[in-house]
Each structure stands twice: as structure tokens, then as C-alpha cells.
């Protein structure tokens, strides 16, 4: 029903040139100059999913500005959460802007549309969020790095947590689309109890009265759900209204800092799994949280942390190798020699993270809703697809 031609409006376009001094420097010194690196960031800056892209961008740019590396140039464009726009943008960035590295895509369906083409053309892709199983297993590529996780990880950790807590029966629920099916599969991979009922909702569904009635009726020990974005906000508000006394666990997406204020007190006490939390105790993280809050006047979300780590990984690789030597640069990325805000961080054989995944609880700190770590669900977790990756 949408006239797609009218949908292509001029995008907010933020281009930052940090290379102005490069020419002057090369004239003064005779020292070997590193090649400038041009990064194309494609992310969602308008529409319902914009808060995720905005946090990704802000986290990434915070690290870029802190580093002040004149060799790094970033071009940012809005994909409107539409695969066809994302593909157009990546073509434009590769062909006319001549970028070296692409990054920033939030959604797995957009990543699937962009990543294989970009890596085939010899560009690097560093994922700040989306990491579908197809790109971790048979479809892995030497130029593709996921800095966030593999999509299944947080769901697997939720399954492990439910097992550890001794929940005998679980009601599990996700939207009926590939990431939703992966979510329930990931949960069941590490959940040893009995699944009381498995329900698929519609993607974009906003009313959950029917599902909540079923959950109440099921009498399960706990509820696991994966409903990203507005779906999760709607569900949690309706869940709180229903007043059902059942522990809730889910991946961090529905309890991320960007949407917690919209859910309100209904979220307090919910357990959610994530590879990052603002209270992870290390120097890099303390600095990141403080600097982000100072610059943007809000608490960072998971997406902001992932964007920040991605930029820091890239900057660390730039210090070690020249982008014109793709093999050396790839090795430098693989080494991941940067202080991650997550603490421990390394890449597995398929260039997806090996990291700890935590259980967080939503709490109210001086009237602000946020998350605090209460347990570690999985240590040094890689992913289920690494073996299928032949690189």
C-alpha cells in the first residue's frame, strides 16, 4: 500500500571529515603515513526502531571522537529499517563513496541483504548488533566480524538460567519470524526442564491479552519471552496489569536502557540476559558509562555499548595495520587488542565473540530504571554454528 517512490525522502546525512590534517602532516614529516580508513555506517535513524540505531551511532561516534584519529572518516546514513534501502545505501557507499568498512546494521534481515554482497566485494563488515546464524555457520566470511554476539546467545543464556534456577516448566513465546524461531530454539538448547507451552505471536503484534490469558492458565513455573522493541513494551505493560505472579526471564532487548522508561515500574524485578551491563566492573566500562552520560545526557543502552566496542576494535586494528593490506588488517581485527567495556573479549574461529553472558535484574536506582547484574549465566560462550564455518 505504500508508494515506495515517495518513501525515498532526503535522509539526515551526517558526514564527518576528520582527515583535514592528513595532507599537511604528510608534507611536514617524511614518516610513513597510515592509509585513511573510511567507514560507512548504515543504521536505523527513523521510524519505530530508530532508538536502537541512534544509540548504536552515538556509542560508535563517542569512541571515534575520544580517539581523535585523523585517519578515520565516518559516513552515516539512515536505512529506515528497510532492506531495500539498506542495499541501496551499501551500493552507494561501496561504489561512489569508496568506503573500506561497513557497520551499524541493527536488524538481521537487513544484515542478510547487505553483508554477503559487501564482503564479496572485499569490504570489511563489523556488526554492531545483528548476527544471524546464516552468517555464523556455512555463510561465514573472513571479512565479516560480529562484535556484538551471535543472535542465539542471549536466548541460550536465558535457557541456562532457567535451568540453574530450577524452573521445572516454562511458557515460552516469540514472534513468528526467523529471529523468533531462532530465539525459542536457542532457549531450548540449554533449558533442561519441560516446555509447558510454546507460542508464536505475530510480528508487530501489540495486544497480548489472549496470550496472557493462556500464560495464566498454563500454571508454568516461569515465562520466557523475546519481543523486541515496541512489542516488548506493550507486552510488559499488559503483563503488569494482569497481575500474574510468575517469574519472567528474557533476552536484554526488551529491557534495554532505551525502552525501560517507557515500560515503567512494570519491568522491576524482571531477569534478562546480556553480555554487557553498565555495572560491569572494569575501567573501560566505567569510563564509557560516564562519558556517554556526560555527552548525551542519558544512560547508555546495550546497543550504545556495542557501537562503542565496535569503534574501539576498529581503532585498535588501525593502530596495528594498514587497511590497504587487507590480510594484515584482518589479522589485527582478529587479535581484538582493545579494552572491551565487557571485560573479557575475544573472537572464536568464525569471528564471533567468545564472552561471558550475564543475568541482569531490572531495578530502580534513585527513581531511574536500569539493570544490575545478579548472576553469570554462561562463561566463555562462543556459538552453536562455529563448527560449520569453513574459512
Amino acid at each position, binding site marked *: *500500500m*505504500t*508508494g515506495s517512490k*515517495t*518513501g525515498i*525522502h532526503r535522509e539526515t546525512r551526517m558526514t564527518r571529515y576528520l582527515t583535514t590534517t592528513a595532507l599537511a602532516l604528510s608534507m611536514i614529516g617524511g614518516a610513513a603515513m597510515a592509509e585513511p580508513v573510511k567507514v560507512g555506517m548504515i543504521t536505523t*535513524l*527513523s*521510524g*519505530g526502531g*530508530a*532508538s536502537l540505531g*541512534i544509540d548504536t551511532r552515538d556509542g560508535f561516534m563517542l569512541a571515534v571522537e575520544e580517539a581523535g584519529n585523523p585517519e578515520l572518516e565516518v559516513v552515516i546514513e539512515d536505512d529506515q529499517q528497510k532492506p531495500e534501502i539498506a542495499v541501496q545505501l551499501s551500493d552507494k557507499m561501496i561504489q561512489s563513496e569508496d568506503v573500506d568498512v561497513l557497520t551499524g546494521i541493527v536488524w538481521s534481515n537487513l544484515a542478510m541483504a547487505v553483508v554477503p554482497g559487501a564482503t564479496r566485494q572485499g569490504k570489511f563488515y563489523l556488526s554492531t548488533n545483528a548476527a544471524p546464524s546464516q552468517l555464523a555457520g556455512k555463510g561465514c566470511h573472513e571479512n565479516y566480524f560480529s562484535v556484538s554476539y551471535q543472535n542465539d546467545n542471549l536466548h541460550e543464556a536465558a535457557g541456562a538460567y532457567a535451568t540453574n534456577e530450577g524452573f521445572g516448566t516454562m511458557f515460552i513465546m516469540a514472534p*513468528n519470524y526467523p529471529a523468533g*524461531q531462532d530465539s525459542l530454539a536457542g532457549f531450548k538448547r540449554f533449558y533442561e526442564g519441560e516446555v509447558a507451552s*510454546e*507460542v*508464536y*505471536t*505475530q510480528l*508487530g503484534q*501489540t*495486544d497480548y*491479552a*489472549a*496470550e496472557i*490469558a*493462556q500464560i*495464566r*492458565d498454563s500454571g508454568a513455573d516461569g515465562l520466557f519471552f523475546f519481543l523486541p*522493541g*515496541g*512489542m516488548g*513494551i*506493550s507486552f510488559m*505493560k*499488559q503483563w503488569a*496489569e*494482569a*497481575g500474574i505472579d510468575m517469574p519472567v526471564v528474557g533476552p536484554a532487548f526488551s529491557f534495554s536502557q*532505551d*525502552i525501560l*522508561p*517507557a*515500560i*515503567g515500574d*512494570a519491568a522491576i524485578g524482571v531477569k534478562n540476559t546480556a553480555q554487557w551491563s553498565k555495572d560491569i566492573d572494569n575501567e573501560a566500562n566505567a569510563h564509557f558509562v560516564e562519558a556517554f552520560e556526560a555527552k548525551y545526557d542519558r544512560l547508555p543502552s546495550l546497543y550504545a555499548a556495542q557501537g562503542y566496542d565496535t569503534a574501539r576494535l576498529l581503532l585498535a586494528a588501525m593502530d596495528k595495520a594498514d587497511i590497504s593490506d587487507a590480510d594484515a588488517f584482518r589479522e589485527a581485527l582478529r587479535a581484538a587488542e582493545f579494552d572491551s567495556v565487557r571485560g573479557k573479549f575475544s573472537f572464536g574461529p568464525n569471528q564471533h565473540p567468545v564472552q561471558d553472558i550475564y543475568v541482569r535484574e531490572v531495578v530502580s536506582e534513585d527513581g531511574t530504571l536500569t539493570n544490575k547484574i545478579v548472576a553469570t549465566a554462561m562463561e566463555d560462550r562462543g556459538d552453536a554454528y562455529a563448527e560449520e564455518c569453513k574459512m
Partner: protein
Amino acid sequence: MSMILLIEQLLNGIQSGLMLFLMAAGLTLVFGVMGLINLAHGSLYMVGAFACAGVAAATGSFWLGLAASIAAAAAAGAIVEVAVIRRLYARDHLDQVLATFALILIFSEGTRWLYGSFPLYLNVPAALSGSVTLPGGIQYSLFRLAIIGAGLAVAVGLFLLIGKTRIGVQVRAGEADREMIAGLGVDIGRLYTLVFALGAALAGLAGALVGTIQSVQVGMGEPVLILAFVVIVIGGIGSIKGALIGALLVGLTDTMGRVLLPPLFSLFMETSAATSIGAALASMAIYILMALVLVVRPGGLFGARA
């Protein structure tokens, strides 16, 4: 499935149907009276939700927010009608679709500019929070009961307005023959603005009520808009009665499909396949319903121009 759960699900279906009715009533009035396809109806729904959330946050009163949502949506509707829509009546439907689609983009980005990209907080007022026990031991959310009440009240009010008042006579006459009523001395321009603002106010009310239990964010109107179109196609374009019956049919079909289809399929296939196929079929159920209605009655159930 127990009887109690079944009745609870029927109530859920009725509640979601009545909310759809608030959206569809405005859409069908505008289409019936002015012959205009208004894609921006969903944006007016969003305006209502944001106005309610904004005023409720500023004043601490949900009720003021609710009043503000109706006022803001009606005002936005009237302004849009005078500034843009008025120029579209004589044009064909493609121009109308293009122009009102542009309005969606303007409203969305304008709302983002005012409120930012992060979803807003809006919660059920204390007086209506929690659940009540209905006869037969059914636990049901008080706010959802209030939504059912509000939906029924609006339905009755609309029937009285259209059926019993002078404005209602003019609206019906406008549907039947635009030129004749203008020739009889009715200020057709003012009537159009009024009808459009009324439709917008209903959309704003729906946005505020639904936003309270769902998510208040940019782009929230478009999924509802699609359902509202399904409702008016089923009910018959231009008919308030059709919109009410169509909305209840869609609400019940959608809710009961989601609840009943997966277990139905699991009777004769493996559970995980059944849930997946059942859910997929449930999401198609209302469109299948629409197709069936159109086969039997191409003009919709109560369509005037069948």
C-alpha cells in the same frame, strides 16, 4: 481449554474489536461522505497517543491527557482538512493516496522532532489499574473493561448522532448526493471539516486508550490503519453499522484464531510444527475472512454501493 478461559478470550476479542471500531468509524465516515481515502488516519491515532502521554506526564493526570488526546487529534484533523485534504476531493484516489501518504511522513518526522525517537511512558490511571473478578470467577483487567465500555458508549453516541440529529441528516444526505445537499444551502465545506475532525477525534481517543496499554511510539498508527481498512471493507464502505459489525468480527476472528488454531493443528501434527503453522494461519485469518465476505457480498456486509 476451560470455559472460563474461553469467555475471557471472547472478552479480549470484543475489546480489540471495539478499539478497531473507533478507528474504522472515522475512516468509513470520511470515505463515505467525502469519497476520500485517508491514509493519514493512523497518524491522527498517533497524535492522540502522544498528546495523552505528553499531557499526562506534564500534569500527572491521565484524564487530562485523555481530554487532550481528543482535542489534539480533532484540531490536527481540522487543520489538515482545511490545509491539504480540501484540495483533494475533486482528484482521483491515486492523488489522495499519494498526498495522505506524504502526510504520514510529515506527521511521523514531526512527532520525532517534538518528542524524540524513544518510546514514551504512559500508564493506566490508578483508578482503573488491576483486575476485577467477574461473575463465574473470570479475572479481567479493569482497564480493558473500561475500554469495552468506552467503545460501546461511542458506538451508541455515533448511532444517535447520525440517526437522530440534524448534523446526522446532513452527513447522510452528503453520502447520498453531494451536489444536491450543497444546492440546498448546506455549507458543505464546514460539514466536511466537521466530519473529518470527528473522525480524527475518534482516532485520537483510540490512540490514547490503546497507547495506555501498548507502546507510545512513532509509527504506531500504520499497523492499526491496515486493520481499520480491513474492517471497513468487510463492513461496507460508508456504513457505521458495518464498521461496528466488521470491527467485532475482525477482533474476534483475530483473537480466537490466535488462541484456537495452534491447539487445533496439534491434534494431528507435531507440536512445534503445529504452533508455527497455527500462528502463521492465525495471522492470515482476518484476511481470509475479508476475502470470504467479498466473495459473498462484494460491497461488504452493509455496503451502500454494492
